[in-house]
């Protein structure tokens, strides 16, 4: 028998005692909500009136023709309110927070997407909100910080450790253990202590449920393959969920290959050789760590994939061979971004573009009556500072320099 909160060898809830009671309550409310069809209906209604669910499934005809193989479909999580799938999880947790009677939410954020989504949800539900964000990420994602603050949230730059996502998580936990009575920690991905992996995956399952129906209508049958980028794993779990038990649907998770999985500068947990089983940030999974169990620095052009751990549910699916894992390098991501914009007029987030990379590698080998879905977890136009920078765009640089000149006067 698998232990509560575990997925095979992975998961669990490695939490300080002070959180024990709050996790018990969270678990209780989550399970009650899960068993209550009215809750899910409330969630779906909220998402369809406040965000734009169901999000479309776009048949990328030009890309399909370009590669001459599989029919490529793109699940458009970019069209969610706040621009990414993060909204699904956050709004769902918002409803739970209301049920739990708490008045304050906190969250970690890397790319800033989850922070913006949480600040948005807090504004909508009238919660106080504090967002923890590594100082490095605050610097590279200033626009997101601006919006979070405008939405009424307090953004706390985290100056410890690698000053990125994992440090923001640690800091959020420190807040939580201090303010546990009033506060819910809105975990941003399918990681962390149980029940977060399961709960986040449950809220995100709305993506796969929609895609399943849409694919039947638009393609007439199940997809042969489904691609999703894997940071913490929430968008992947979201789209994979409904298809896990379907025959003949291959699921592919794409991790951040950074400068190459052989360089050590990446965030490939399940497809490289640098990760090993470990326990940190409250859960057991494959971590990028050294022999002593100290976490390593990671690298990706996509802040949202730049993380040491991965969903324990995905570690389990990996171990069972139910999901194939690959990596996309920063360079491949930029190339694919370029192609996708030019061919389809669609701007994937840097994170999402990782899924596109592998899909584009595989599509030409497939037959034209097979369909594949790429989960486009978010939109890239929020990443203008990163993307314009990565493309080394001269007029962008000139624009920034000129703006700065005005501000320095």
């Amino acid at each position: 028998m698998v232990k509560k909160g575990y997925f095979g060898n992975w998961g669990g809830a490695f939490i300080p005692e002070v959180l024990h009671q709050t996790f018990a309550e969270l678990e209780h409310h989550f399970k009650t909500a899960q068993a209550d069809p009215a809750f899910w209906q409330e969630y779906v209604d909220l998402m369809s009136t406040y965000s734009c669910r169901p999000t479309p499934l776009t048949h990328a005809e030009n890309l399909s023709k370009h590669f001459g193989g599989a029919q490529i479909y793109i699940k458009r999580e970019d069209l969610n309110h706040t621009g990414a799938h993060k909204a699904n999880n956050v709004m769902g947790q918002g409803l739970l927070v209301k049920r739990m009677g708490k008045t304050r939410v906190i969250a970690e954020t890397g790319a800033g997407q989850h922070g913006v989504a949480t600040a948005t949800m807090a504004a909508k539900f009238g919660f106080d909100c504090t967002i923890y964000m590594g100082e490095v990420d605050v610097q590279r994602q200033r626009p997101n910080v601006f919006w979070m603050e405008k939405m009424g949230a307090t953004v706390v730059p985290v100056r410890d450790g690698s000053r990125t996502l994992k440090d923001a998580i640690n800091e959020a936990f420190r807040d939580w253990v201090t303010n546990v009575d009033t506060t819910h920690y809105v975990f941003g991905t399918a990681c962390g202590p149980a029940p977060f992996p399961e709960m986040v995956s449950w809220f995100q399952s709305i993506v796969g449920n929609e895609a399943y129906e849409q694919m039947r209508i638009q393609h007439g049958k199940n997809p042969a393959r489904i691609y999703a980028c894997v940071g913490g794993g929430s968008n992947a779990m979201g789209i994979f969920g409904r298809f896990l038990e379907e025959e003949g649907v291959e699921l592919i998770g794409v991790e951040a290959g950074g400068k190459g999985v052989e360089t050590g500068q990446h965030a490939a947990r399940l497809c490289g050789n640098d990760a090993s089983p470990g326990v940190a940030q409250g859960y057991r999974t494959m971590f990028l760590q050294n022999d002593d169990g100290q976490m390593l620095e990671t690298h990706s052009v996509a802040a949202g994939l730049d993380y040491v751990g991965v969903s324990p549910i995905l570690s389990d699916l990996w171990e069972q061979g139910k999901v194939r894992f690959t990596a996309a390098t920063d360079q491949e991501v930029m190339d694919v971004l370029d192609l996708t914009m030019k061919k389809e007029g669609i701007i994937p987030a840097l994170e999402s573009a990782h899924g596109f990379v592998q899909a584009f590698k595989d599509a030409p080998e497939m037959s034209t009556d097979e369909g594949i879905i790429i989960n486009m977890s978010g939109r890239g136009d929020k990443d203008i500072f990163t993307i314009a920078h990565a493309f080394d765009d001269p007029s962008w640089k000139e624009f920034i320099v000129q703006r700065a000149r005005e501000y320095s006067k």
Partner: protein
Amino acid sequence: MQLEQHLRKSLEHKDILLMTHIVLGYPSFEVNREVIRQMVDNGVDCIEMQIPFSEPMADGPVIMKANLDSLAIGTRVEECLAFGKEMAATHSIPFLYMTYYNIIFKYGEERFIEACTEAGITGLIVPDLPPEQSEIFFRHARERNIAPILIYSPTSTHERMKELDDSGSGFIYCVARRGVTGKKSDLDEDFTSYLQRCRAATSKPLAVGFGIQSADDINALRGIADMAVIGSQTIRLVDEQGPEAVGPFIAELRG
């Protein structure tokens, strides 16, 4: 029962014991050695040595920084184990390791406990390891007479306290308040009734930690707790005044 027996013996002639904390390798093993010597010389009853971890989620800024700085200068787990062995051999008080679970997990739970036994370590504090999460760890520790110290918090219910009491040994570490290490706690009425709840749930000695910083704090614990834990405060002291300030500080605490 080794650790608990030891503490009970000390309690025969002291109304409250003192446990102190250091982060291994911070600022260096040499300074650790000197600080421990001064602690022991000035009457500390028990020392928890923290093996640094890159993600010290339950620690406040002072201890967190000490963890990260120690790792930054290259501190390895093996070195910590060797140093612990040296200390246990040098001094007669009980020594504990405090660390996060991943250090133990990665080392191998059995192997780690073996190493503790060999080093003469008497207890282990692992703040992110609730008893449900590793049956192996708790079984091995108890078999090898290494006390797994469990933690009570003001949010723990009576049932939970009983459960923890069943799995832990040595003593119960009662955190004085919600939050992380390093910030002063109010030892007020709520706190007293919390400690009464703790006492009602266990027959083990009660240690109180988180924000204990002065002789006054320790006086407030007399009669309701068995051991006071000084954490961040000595690290601050060493940072600001050097290791030689530790002896007088402890002497003053002991009153």
